[in-house]
């Protein structure tokens, strides 16, 4: 409750994206309601500007024309869901992948940086956790600082890190990956520290009666026991690494990536473009978490366990 609250809270957040049979109906119902609210909000928010435009036209208009116009604006205050879907379709399926306006291209740029950082952060997190579990000095000295490191809003200073690294010649993928790594090492390290300590004294005593070495205890007891803690941490980490990569692309004038789409969209008032980039980011995050869930299932199955 003291040290690892941040991680446990975060882990609880992102673990279940599963949809059981009993949740399909409620989710559909709530989703429908949200869609209806969204369309109504689009009428309300876009209404004033549409009224202005229609009045300028001078012709009388009925309510149907008015509503249709609020859902089809060029630069709406709130785009209707179908406009975002259309924009997504136009920028993914309809555009060649190497086009500057292809969201697949921008998504791939962001995803590659995020994944590089995710792998780096995961390795760092696991190494730190192994050190902390085995060396008391590291536990006492490092652990409080690892927790403290996350109360620092690192995401907010990501752009500066990008600029500074750019000064020493590191540009492109590396600075973004470093920020993603900084964000993603934390849930992995905390999860692994918990997991590697999960074996109870009885099990550790059993290993001792076998006169197992430290390495053997680690390989045969601690590491397998930590697996069920590693994957929730990994899922949080991958979501965080995506956020990190996107933020790192913001105020540095990056030419590509989802972050740069957000920024250019906000400069030119292209709201539909912003929403499309956001939805793309959400799709990437959910897909990455889904893939990790599949791997987790595979690992658990391979060990003869049940999910």
């Amino acid at each position, binding site marked *: 409750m003291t040290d690892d609250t941040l991680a446990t*809270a975060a882990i609880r957040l*992102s673990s279940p994206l599963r949809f059981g049979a009993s949740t399909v109906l409620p989710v559909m119902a709530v989703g429908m309601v949200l869609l209806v609210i969204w369309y109504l909000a689009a009428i309300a928010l876009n209404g004033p500007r549409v009224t202005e435009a229609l009045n300028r036209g001078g012709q009388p208009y009925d309510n149907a024309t008015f509503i249709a116009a609020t859902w089809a604006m060029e630069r709406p205050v709130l785009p209707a869901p179908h406009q975002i879907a259309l924009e997504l379709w136009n920028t993914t399926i309809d555009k060649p992948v190497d086009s500057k306006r292809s969201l697949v291209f921008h998504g791939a740029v962001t995803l590659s940086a995020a994944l590089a950082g995710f792998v780096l952060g995961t390795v760092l997190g696991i190494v730190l956790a192994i050190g902390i579990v085995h060396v008391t*000095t590291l536990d006492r000295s490092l652990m409080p*600082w690892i927790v403290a490191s996350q109360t*620092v809003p690192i995401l907010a200073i990501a752009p500066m890190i990008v600029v500074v690294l750019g000064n020493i010649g590191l540009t492109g993928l590396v600075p973004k990956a470093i920020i993603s790594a900084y964000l993603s090492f934390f849930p992995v390290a905390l999860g692994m520290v918990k997991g590697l300590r999960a074996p109870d004294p009885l099990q550790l005593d059993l290993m001792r009666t076998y006169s197992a070495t430290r390495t053997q205890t680690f390989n045969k007891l601690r590491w397998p026991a930590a697996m069920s803690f590693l994957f929730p941490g990994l899922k949080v980490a991958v979501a965080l690494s995506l956020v990190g990569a996107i933020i790192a692309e913001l*105020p540095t004038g990056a030419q590509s990536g989802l972050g740069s789409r957000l920024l250019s969209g906000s400069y030119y008032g292209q709201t539909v473009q912003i929403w499309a980039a*956001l939805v793309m980011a959400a799709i990437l995050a959910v897909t990455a978490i889904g893939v990790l869930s599949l791997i987790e299932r595979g690992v658990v199955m391979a060990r003869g366990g049940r999910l």
Partner: protein
Amino acid sequence: MSGAPARAALVAAAALAGELLTLVASEFQAGLAPTLLLGIAALTIAALAMSRLSRHDHGAARLAVPALFGLTMLWLWQVITTTFGIPKILLPAPSEIAVAFIANSATLGADFMQTFVRSVIPGYVMGCGAGFLLAIAIDRSNFLQRGLLPFGNLAAAVPVVGIAPIMVMWFGFDWESKAAVIVVMTVFPMLINTTAGLSATSAMELDLMRSYAARYGQTLVKLRLPAAMPYIFNALKLNSTLALIGGIVAEFFGTPIVGMGFRISTEVARMNIDIVWATIAVAALSGSLSYGVLSIVERATTFWHPSFRK
């Protein structure tokens, strides 16, 4: 306090003295070799002190180890930047950051007021409050819970902070747009954690309340809400960091000419990296302080929880 802890404290004092000596040497440019030798010696003694102190379990030693570690890191940063003459644009020394902090304290204070007091706190209170009330509102409907929670989880997985440009368009440059971003970022963690907390009571406890003929409201106030407190504090702590991030990032997309996010982005562009680091120090301090205050309040309200009992 007998021999062993006293000796450990002595080693720690020796480590601090060594670090101080190295600082002096590097400040007066005593030459690379002596400074490095001194530094390595001080580092070794510091490591020794930490490993000795780690063996003791009482309060002072538990605080001393991380404190010594933090001081040593700060010292290492200072010595390396001054000894190797690392340019200020890349990485200013802690002393330079401290100077910038004091020299610009008026600006930094105004930024803090704008970002922390005027955007973060209102957004945080509104977001956490809305999440909590929403959780109470859907508490009696299993259907709504099953339908809403997956959306909450989805919102936790996607980069919500990306809505910042939209909120700036809707609510303008001032604090309202920042607070709006923070509300959207904090409402779902609160909703999910409160819902989890409200279902944390066991069937036995609920049965006891029923045998007292307690009404729904009484069970909620007397049993389920207190039991949910640890979960609610989890969300409060998580949200305190999220809110600060949201407030600062939203300022990258447009702001009046004051605020921590504005300061970071403009001073980076003007290559005043020491002011940027001073702003980061303010952000880190306010983040850690809010976390600390929440921890103290948590201890006072959930003192009964097993993790706080000795």
